[in-house]
């Protein structure tokens, strides 16, 4: 009976796994074909990939704020990523945080006067178990209304 229960759980999981791998792969392709994501070119030529809708929603009430777009690897679990939000919430100058598990991004809105130290962000995220691969600082004012969702 127990083994029957296992079979009921495992067989669909393998089938689902196969389907997911194909789905994920096709999503990956879409990622590069600019569907559903924002690719914005920085002044220094660097490109950051963001979920446009998510980003617009995040900055909608953040006029004048500085936005740190932090690329993170190893952020695979909501429960594990909770520590990131808790850590940054305690920091003076942080107004808002968003965690995007699907794209491995953490968005942090700082006040205009806050001094953002990349090393500090890296260390805080490392302390929570994940690794930072890139940090870009944007100003919400310069991004609002640029029509990213229409790109």
């Amino acid at each position, binding site marked *: 009976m127990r083994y029957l229960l296992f079979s009921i759980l495992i067989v669909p*999981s393998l089938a689902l796994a196969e389907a997911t791998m194909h789905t994920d792969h096709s999503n990956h392709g879409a990622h590069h074909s600019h569907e559903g994501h924002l690719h914005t070119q920085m002044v220094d030529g660097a490109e950051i990939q963001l979920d446009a809708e998510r980003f617009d929603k995040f900055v909608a009430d953040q006029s004048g704020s500085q936005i740190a777009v932090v690329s993170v690897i190893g952020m695979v679990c*909501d429960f594990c990523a909770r520590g990131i939000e*808790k850590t940054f919430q305690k920091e003076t100058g942080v107004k808002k945080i968003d*965690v995007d598990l699907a794209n491995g991004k953490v968005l942090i809105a700082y006040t205009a006067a806050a001094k953002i130290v990349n090393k500090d962000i890296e260390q805080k995220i490392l302390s929570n*178990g994940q690794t930072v691969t890139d940090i870009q600082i944007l100003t919400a004012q310069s991004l609002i209304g640029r029509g990213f969702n229409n790109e």
Partner: protein
Amino acid sequence: MVFSNEMRDAAYYHYSPSYKYSLGIELVDEKKAMKNHANFRYTYLLNRKNTQNSQRNLYFQSSLSAGGNDENSYGFLGDWETRRYFIGFGAQKLKSNLRDYDKQFFQIGFSPYLGDYGDLHSWLMIKSKHDSRTDKWNSYPVIKFFKGDYLLEFGVDENNEPDIHFTIRF
């Protein structure tokens, strides 16, 4: 974390001064022996690999008992997970004033859907445990849910005894 099965109820609190290690205290109620005691636990991260879509961890874990059967232990825990799949294992050597024995477990699972940050996340898993005292593997399905700072893992083993873990992140 609160844990309960047919042998014991336990509440475990741990603090991580750094991501490399954590210190914890476990308060145990041995139901069959009708005894209470505390275990002090030390967990050290031996290896971690983060990738875009996965995380792999290997830990050393040891515990010292104060009271009860003076049961001390050491062992290893490991896991690999993506947003969709989870594989975990553990091996533990336990020494007590009654006898020495080993425990091992394996756990695999998948998430039937990918929730966004803040959603209710659900996992279906199979857990398999071995205890050298009985030399039997006990395998059973486990369901795991987490939302926000709360995590609940629930399973019923082959003896129809519940295996429950409830964790709160402070």
